[in-house]
């Protein structure tokens, strides 16, 4: 923690960066994002295992970008997001500076995307155990049971789009859900509309999701929508051996192909 504060202070004092996006203490002893712009503000910065929010979501926010060069205190999810966003040409190396802390408390300062790639390649990118087990459990269910499971959950969805807003990869200028010519997705927060929305959201994140879980954390109705993305993460990993957010220069899974992609269902 001290090393982060020290480095953040230096960066702000030397005007190397204009703002440090990091974690601070929120209401009721929770953790929340803070935006430090003055050297003395660095004392508010914290970093520990409770700092789970994927702060990369703020990198594309206009009012934050306008402040000037950014420094982000990035957890693994955020680092992977940065690589994925870079591969999609949304952020550029010179625009930001990444700090992180290893599990044994060592401060990391990344000089570029290549540096992040190297670090990420050594990190655990597996899905959380709880979710992995839940996916396995769902896969073992019958189709009808799975359908019931999701209908029960999706019936609660109020289409607040917190899942979309919290996702750092959902940066589209205009979400497909906003189209009404044609009305791709039933507007209303009805079961069908919610179902269609989740299919769209997951498909759009296929091969791009870095399994940060922000979507489910943001959901005010506690719908485990991250399972959908995680399932797709597994599919992509299994079929194409690709994990999103590991390389700043590769084509996305859905915009590339191998002429011998394997499947067993096409007649």
């Amino acid at each position, binding site marked *: 923690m001290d090393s982060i504060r020290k480095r953040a202070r230096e960066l702000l004092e030397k005007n190397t960066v204009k703002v440090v996006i990091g974690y601070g203490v929120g*209401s009721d002893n929770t953790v929340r994002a803070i935006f430090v712009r003055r050297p003395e503000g660095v004392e508010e910065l914290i970093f520990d295992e409770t700092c789970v929010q994927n702060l990369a979501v703020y990198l594309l926010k206009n009012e934050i970008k306008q402040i000037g060069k950014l420094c982000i205190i990035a957890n693994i999810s955020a680092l992977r997001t940065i690589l994925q966003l870079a591969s999609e040409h949304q952020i550029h190396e010179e625009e930001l500076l990444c700090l992180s802390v290893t599990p044994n408390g060592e401060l990391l300062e990344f000089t570029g995307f290549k540096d992040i790639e190297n670090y990420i390649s050594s990190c655990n990118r597996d899905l959380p155990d709880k979710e992995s087990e839940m996916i396995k459990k769902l896969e073992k269910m019958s189709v009808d049971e799975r359908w019931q499971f999701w209908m029960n959950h999706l019936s609660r969805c109020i289409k607040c789009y917190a899942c979309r807003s919290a996702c750092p990869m959902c940066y589209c200028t205009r979400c497909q859900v906003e189209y009404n010519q044609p009305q791709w997705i039933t507007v209303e927060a009805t079961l069908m509309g919610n179902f269609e929305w989740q299919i769209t959201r997951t498909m759009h994140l296929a091969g791009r999701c870095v399994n940060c879980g922000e979507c489910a954390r943001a959901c005010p*109705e506690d719908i485990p929508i991250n399972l959908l993305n995680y399932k797709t993460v597994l599919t992509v990993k299994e079929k194409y051996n690709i994990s999103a957010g590991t390389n700043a220069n590769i084509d996305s899974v859905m915009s590339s192909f191998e002429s011998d992609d394997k499947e067993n269902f096409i007649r």
Partner: protein
Amino acid sequence: MNIENKLLKLSSLEGLVLKLNQDGKQVFAPVKKDNIVNFAPVSAFHEMTQDYIVTARSAKFVVFPRVETILEMQFSKDNITLKDKDLSSIPDAVLLGTRPCDAAGFKVLTSIFEGDYIDNIYVTRLKKTTIISISCNNYDAKCFCTSVNVHPGGTAGSDILLTRIDNDNFLAEIVTEKGKEIVNKFDTLFDIAPDVNKDSLVANVPVEFDLSAILGKIYPRFESDIWVEQSLRCIGCGTCAYVCPTCGCFDIQDVSDGHNGQRKRSWDSCGFDLFTLHSSGHNPRNTQSKRWRQRILHKFVYVPEQDNILGCVGCGRCSRACSVDMNLKEHLINLIGELTK
């Protein structure tokens, strides 16, 4: 009408819910499912949970559903037939277990839906809904009703207000004619009220800020940096508006399969960037700070000025639901600090 006090035994509530259902009324009460408490249809009282401060979502859905078909169209060759919503199809409903803040919220919604334009669907729904609230005997860190002039034992907006006297008994305050109708219909369930001091039975929610420091003083700070400062963290989702008991913004969409069509009204949020996007491409509220400012101003400036009612009831739902900790109470206190600088 003068408020009439009665006694309602906890044991009678089972019968009340049953009878209300038998009477053809749809009864909604807080139900705990997957650890979230929300209003849901109940056929028996025991389905209702007692373990809640407020529900996650507000009760506004009964009068302002998250989706509502407000008009139907039928296309035939060279002709379109329009059919207004059949108001008689709206069912009688009873809301049981709303909090005084929820009930107060309906007043705000009414000021919106019965403002310049009278929205008959809303009016009918509200007319057909009986609100049986339960006073708060508990609160949490996100509650700030008393700071916005709502009382945990307040009757405003309720038809009947129940206040827990002890384990087995409620004080039932019959606030409106609609409430009285219920009592008259099921009079065997109600007894004569004992003499109790209601104030001692409800939670003592501390006043956290001085409302008068805000009211009438925000607008001059329209261009202040504080809006940017406060909203940097906001990710622009619609959660706060969707859980809010007083947010009445909606979107209207026409859907059709070429033969039949519906005009549907669904919840919307001023927090979305598309909310104010013009067809020209211009967006007057093109940044999150402007949209955050709108949210605060709507509740604390525009509604009070236009309708003489405060747009926030201090239920704290927005702060509880927010995934990035946009704590409204904290922001209001912080705003007062800025205003008094």
